[in-house]
């Protein structure tokens, strides 16, 4: 009896062992060549970019992917950034990495394409003069809504204190800085204000708002508009454009109290052993062609003047927020690293998320 049932297990086990043996040999074959490694979100640069870069410069480049700023930041802090050459992160993270000494200064002589940038993009609050970062894409955070189902919202309070017919039909971003940003804007405060009064007022507002939400959503909010589950969502402009692409009744607006200016940037890891090649990559990305690709495929604005001027005008017709001028964009405050304010800020966010 015992024998019979061991036999019935033997076969799958044999397969498992054989599989492991194959796997081991494949694994042993993966040798490391000299090359630079770029970490980015998946799909955030042209699929053939690395290939073209190698063709043009002779430098081998490999892509590594991350899901969120927080993850790549955590990994670079814990591992000292070893293995990475160029990172794509949002500006507050670039700022923190710089303060921690984990990114390298940019040598402008090696990045001639920086001249493609708008003048406004050279004086961004987190890094005036682009000393350690180069902007890649920028935009605003606002409200994305179904214009066939509701009138245009005008205030952040339309989201935080929704009218009765919108209750249970709105979503908010749950990434801490943007969640709190909506409240700070509604209160007329700075996005980087971590004073006790502002945090307390923001908390009250957001705990009350929580009751009327369909959900917090950072990833699929535009799909909820398309499917009709939600009528209005707290959204980054580019992601609202994905919704607009599926349903022309979806529109994007910035409430009267304003928005933040978000900036995604490139930084060079201080641990990079090939900084010249990393500079060459940053320079390559700042070429007009890459900017055009980003704008037409990701539907994000780029701070690349040459690229925005080369853009197909019909794109701006379909996605009006793509046409926003750099002067209008840079009116808005940027999210900055909070330094010591991070502790009370994080606690407030935890309290909001834990509230019933």
């Amino acid at each position, binding site marked *: 009896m*015992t*024998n*019979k*049932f*061991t*036999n*019935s*297990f033997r*076969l*799958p*086990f044999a*397969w*498992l*062992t054989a*599989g*492991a043996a194959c*796997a*081991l040999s*494949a*694994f042993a074959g*993966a040798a*490391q060549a000299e090359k630079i*490694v770029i*970490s980015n*979100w*998946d*799909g*955030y640069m042209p699929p053939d970019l690395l290939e073209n870069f190698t063709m043009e410069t002779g430098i081998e480049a*490999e*892509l*590594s*992917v*991350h*899901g*969120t700023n927080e*993850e790549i930041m*955590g*990994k670079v802090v*814990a*591992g*000292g950034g*070893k*293995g*990475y050459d160029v990172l794509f992160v949002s500006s507050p993270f670039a700022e923190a990495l710089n303060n921690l000494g984990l990114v390298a200064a940019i040598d402008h002589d090696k990045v001639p394409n920086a001249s493609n940038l708008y003048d406004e993009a050279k004086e961004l609050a987190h890094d005036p003069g682009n000393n350690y970062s180069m902007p890649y894409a920028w935009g605003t955070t606002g409200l994305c809504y179904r214009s066939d189902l509701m009138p245009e919202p005008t205030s952040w309070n339309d989201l935080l204190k929704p009218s009765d017919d919108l209750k249970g039909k709105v979503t908010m971003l749950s990434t801490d800085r943007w969640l709190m940003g909506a409240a700070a804007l509604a209160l007329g405060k700075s996005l980087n204000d971590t004073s006790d009064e502002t945090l307390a007022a923001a908390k009250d507002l957001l705990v009350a708002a929580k009751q009327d939400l369909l959900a917090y959503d950072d*990833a*699929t909010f535009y*799909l909820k508009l*398309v*499917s009709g589950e939600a009528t209005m969502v707290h959204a980054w402009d580019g992601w609202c454009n*994905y919704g607009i692409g*599926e349903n022309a009744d979806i529109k994007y607006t910035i409430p009267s109290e304003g928005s933040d200016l978000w900036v995604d940037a490139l930084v060079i890891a201080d641990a990079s052993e090939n900084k010249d090649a990393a500079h060459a990559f940053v320079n390559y990305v700042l070429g007009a062609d890459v900017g055009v690709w980003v704008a037409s495929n*990701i539907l994000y604005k780029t701070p690349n003047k040459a690229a925005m001027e080369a853009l197909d005008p019909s794109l701006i017709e379909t996605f009006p927020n793509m046409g926003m001028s750099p002067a209008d964009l840079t009116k808005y405050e940027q999210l900055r690293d909070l330094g010591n304010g991070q502790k009370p800020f994080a606690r407030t966010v935890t309290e909001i998320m834990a509230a019933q």
Partner: protein
Amino acid sequence: MRDRSNMGLKLHLVLFYTFLYVPILVLMALSFNRAGLPTVWTGFSLEWYGKLFTADPILLAARNTLIVALISTVLATIFGTLLAVGVETRHNSSVLDAVLFAPMIIPDIVLAIALLSFFTLLNMTLGLHSIILSHVVFNIAFVVAVVRTRMRNFDHSILEASADLGASEFTTFRRILLPAIAPGVIAGALLSFTLSVDEFIIAFFTAGAGQSSTTLPMQIYAMIRFGVTPEINAMATIVMFVSFTLVFFAQRTDKEVFSR
């Protein structure tokens, strides 16, 4: 009475498999979704299967996931089974219990950051091997837990009898103990393979930089920002189909060879 309760059990099993597979059918259906949307149906298309076969990063990531899961499962199953036998037959202590429970309880993010800091301290080059080293840690705990349930109430006198009859330790282990605990070992191996295939945080932190040590969960989470496309559903559909076929044929061969 017994027949009736057996019928009830069979019905429960059928309902249980339905519960398990209905979401998988939805997932498969979405692999034929025309638009690149993960949750909204827009019409039929085979486009994503075509895209999948040209999507090198996804295929490479799938290969890496399989390598990590298979090797870490084999290692964890061997070490975990030995540990379970050792703990149940000779060294039962609460300190040991705590060490064996710990990998299940320690939050993934803690283990992830701890291991990366540790590997960095040792100046170790990261790659698939460092993910494997890390996955074995939590997999061991799950294998030990499952195999131990089987070791409980195990009649240890059989082992003594075997020894008295002059069988070597190794023979006793292989011929008496191992067959008796085999279902536990199999269950533990399946469990650890499944956990490893889906694990994201620890893999992300302990992976080397670059495509060559990116696993499928890492690849998929990195896609969230700019759209998780039905390519992933197509990938999962193929994985399901291939595994299903393998199981089916394993079962068939099994029957022909062993049920004489």
